[in-house]
């Protein structure tokens, strides 16, 4: 159960991407075998895709899987490297926090606007941003707490690697 909660974003994201794949496969088969068109299929597949991206991006952020390089910072003296690491997490806190806030504003403004095909509220799509960036903000706070703890443990090794 604890493992499930820990990887909850991964499960949510996997769920949405599965829906996307299944919808597209079924849509092709229906069309090719029975000449049946499902007008909402593409839009539904795309909305699930978007949810999968932002929730999945948060899961990858937690596991530091987003593509970057730490080689420049690694060549620096350990103290400088640590300081940059903390600074980076502070910048990320401002960034993810701002994105979280802005996605709330955006979603609030999107409530009355219909999607192209199904005509459902765009808020169902945009709220994926709130979830994704909200989780990322929480993870950034977690990283900063780790930084803080390690600072007081003194012998903190590089916990800020980004792969």
């Amino acid at each position, binding site marked *: 159960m604890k493992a499930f909660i820990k990887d909850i974003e991964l499960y949510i994201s996997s769920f949405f991407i599965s829906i996307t794949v299944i919808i597209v496969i079924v849509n092709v088969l229906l*069309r090719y075998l029975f*000449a*049946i*068109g499902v*007008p909402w299929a*593409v*839009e539904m597949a795309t909305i699930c895709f978007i949810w999968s991206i932002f929730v999945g991006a948060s899961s990858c952020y937690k596991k530091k899987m987003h593509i970057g390089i730490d080689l420049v910072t690694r060549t620096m003296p350990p103290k400088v490297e640590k300081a940059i690491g903390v600074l980076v997490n502070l910048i990320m806190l401002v960034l993810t926090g701002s994105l979280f806030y802005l996605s709330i504003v955006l979603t609030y*403004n999107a409530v009355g*606007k*219909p999607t*192209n*095909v*199904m*005509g459902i509220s765009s808020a169902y799509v945009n709220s994926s941003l709130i979830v994704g960036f909200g989780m990322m903000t929480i993870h950034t706070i977690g990283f900063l707490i780790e930084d803080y703890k390690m600072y007081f443990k003194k012998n903190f090794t590089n916990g800020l690697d980004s792969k």
Partner: protein
Amino acid sequence: GAEDEAPADVADEKVEDFSIKIQLSHVFSPKDQLSIEMANAADIIRERTDGAVDIQVFDSGQLPVYKEGLEQVVRGANFISVEDPSYVGDYVPDFVALIGPMLYETYEEYAAMMETALVAELKERAAEEGIKILTLEVMFGFRNMITDKEIVTPEDMEGMLIRVPNSQLWIETLGAMGATATPLPWNEAVPALRQKVVHGIEGSATTMLHHKIYEMLGHVSMTKHFLGTAGVYINTDVFYSMPEKYQKIVQEEFVAAARRNNEILIANNEDVVNQLKEKGVKFNEVDADAFRARTSVVFETFEGLTPGIYDRIMGELKIIRGN
């Protein structure tokens, strides 16, 4: 009209200081007539205002377009959006009815409709939502069925997969006309046709010529189910923040640009049809009344339309046709 809501005159010395930079965004490619006319309008406005109103034109969807473009306008960015009026329909749904299926038979009818009190009222409602409509008069020609067989009645379309843009209006309309609407983005439409994933598209003769659709499909059934149009939109507050004489210039020049576009459209249309005929494309008339009987349901089922809007539009059309 909306002009009455303008704030008090800006004093002349303030006019001297005023300057504004506005991004104009549309999705058309640089060679399209509309692109040329939009760039012309921006140049003339810059000249007539001594550079005070500097409109920078971005084509091909480099900046936000479609819903995202309208959103820029509504939210008050220094932005001009050039889009199909159905996008205004997200804010004032009756704009969808104005360009709904099987309404206009000629370009003149549409132009005359734009002069009616009904449209003036709609424009005012849009202005209240933050969309100042500079013109609605840009036209691209009628959209017809482009398939590989002759279509005369709705029954002929049964079971046909027709590519439509990702739009509820299109899906409902083509569905009502008897086809199976298949929404696909345009860049997948041509491969889909080539591979017979869909049996046809709906669009203008110009589209058929420019994208070489005639290599795959040989029949145009002239349903005229939509008249392709576009409007030019700016934020209401941004518009009225300009000195009155600049407002007048901007308004005039976009109307003029739309009219130049339409003149060239009408002049070219016959030529386009002839070129297609030379390539072996066959054109046929359809039973328009049969289609109209089917598509009128769209005006009832489409979400958010004012009850009775269809009758009002048809009433105006009757007056226009009476003249």
